């Protein structure tokens, strides 16, 4: 992911300035002030870019630009898309937290080996769904709601909306947590439907009927089927 501190800075530094008309002393002075501000704010802006909403904005811009510029992805090349997701999205997603939410109390009943396998299978499942949703993206404008991050918060929800012609905008929300120095996404909700929490009932039912091993088998079978279906198309 490429961070662009100067771009963010430009937005920040210019917006409070009154509109300049003509090129006179005022413009020159403003330019000088701007340069000084840029120099002073550069390290600050870098730190701020890692704030959760800035991270999602930057990621969204990156990924949508990559889709726009890649004719293979636009033509439905699932492998190219999953490479993109692997490179851009996966480093910012906490699958360990996600699978624990989906598992609920059953998580603690799984052995460390089972937990590892569950995380692996769930990651495959969630990434496939997420990629499928991304593949449907076609140049729609994406807007971001006001950031709800307060300094010191370790959990935050970043809200965005995809505008669609002649229908209500599609709300996309990212639940994020701070782990160490980084913000990571642990759930994504599309018009209220969670990519992770939606599995809670399914998982508990599966564990109740077939045990944790049965759930792992179920996930593995599902992933295998989807994988062969993908190769055929």
């Amino acid at each position, binding site marked *: 992911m490429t961070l662009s501190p100067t771009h963010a800075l430009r937005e920040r530094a210019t917006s409070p300035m009154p509109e300049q008309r003509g090129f006179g002393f005022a413009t020159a002075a403003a330019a000088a002030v701007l340069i000084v501000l840029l120099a002073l704010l550069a390290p600050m802006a870098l730190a701020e870019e890692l704030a959760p909403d800035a991270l999602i904005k930057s990621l969204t811009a990156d990924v949508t630009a990559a889709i726009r510029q890649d004719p293979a992805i636009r033509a439905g090349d699932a492998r190219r898309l999953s490479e993109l997701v692997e490179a851009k999205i996966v480093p910012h997603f906490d699958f360990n937290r996600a699978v624990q939410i989906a598992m609920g109390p059953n998580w603690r009943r799984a052995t460390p080996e089972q937990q590892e396998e569950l995380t692996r299978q769930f990651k495959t499942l969630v990434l496939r769904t997420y990629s499928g949703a991304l*593949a449907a993206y076609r140049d729609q404008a994406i807007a971001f709601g006001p950031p709800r991050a307060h300094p010191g918060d370790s959990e935050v929800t970043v809200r965005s909306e995809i505008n669609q012609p002649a229908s209500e905008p599609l709300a996309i929300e990212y639940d994020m947590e701070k782990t160490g120095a980084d913000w990571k996404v642990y759930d994504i909700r599309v018009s209220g439907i969670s990519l992770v929490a939606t599995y809670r009932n399914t998982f508990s039912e599966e564990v109740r009927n077939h045990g944790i091993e049965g759930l792992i088998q179920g996930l593995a079978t599902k992933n295998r089927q989807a994988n062969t279906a993908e190769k055929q198309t």
Partner: protein
Amino acid sequence: MRHLFPSRRSGSAAATLALLIATALSGCATTGESASGDPIEPANRPVFEFNQGLDHQVVRPVAEGYEAQVPAPVRSCVRNVFSNLGDIFTSVNQLLQGEPGKAVSDISRFGVNTTVGVLGCFDPASSMGLAKHKRDFGETLALWGVPPGPYVVLPLLGPSTVRDAFGLVPGWFFDPTNYVAGPAALALKGTQTVSARSSNLKASDLIDSAALDPYLFTRDAFLAHRLDQIYDGHPPIADADSARPDVN
């Protein structure tokens, strides 16, 4: 009995009706409670299977053909025409939900798109700042304090709750396509169904690839989405489990 919002209205005949339904619903919800919050799952599953079968055999293939054969501008026109008709009842519900401003906006939308937008084929209203909304009577009942009752899968119509199923009735009367008689009615309904299905082909593919148990996945996704609609995008976070109806 859990209320989503305090009732904003009282005294009207509609509110009395709402209260009656609420009483009936809370009655059947407490008697038929199950751990999963889906007391009539044994009845729902066969209906779900039936709907899925019908979709796979008939509706989906026709919708795919429609998408492949009919040019995108025509499909967009058809979708917009039906969406435009829906704005009438949306406006009525805005009023019933205590949003007169939005009610005016939505009925103006209908006026603009029906005239300038050629019977709703185009959507000039959106570029004039009249944004599209979608409000149904089930949401109105929810805002009046009617609990959802158990999750129900309706034949042909799909996922719903007892409350939302009742809510379909007034909507039926406000849908102009229901006042067309004879073979034209069948053609209209058919077109509406195929048009709607063709716009969610990708979404249903996604569910197919995501769901371990399509019944449970559809149910839980529907209920979460419904809660999101009722709370206008801000459902209570701490109460994530209340996505299931009547689990107390």
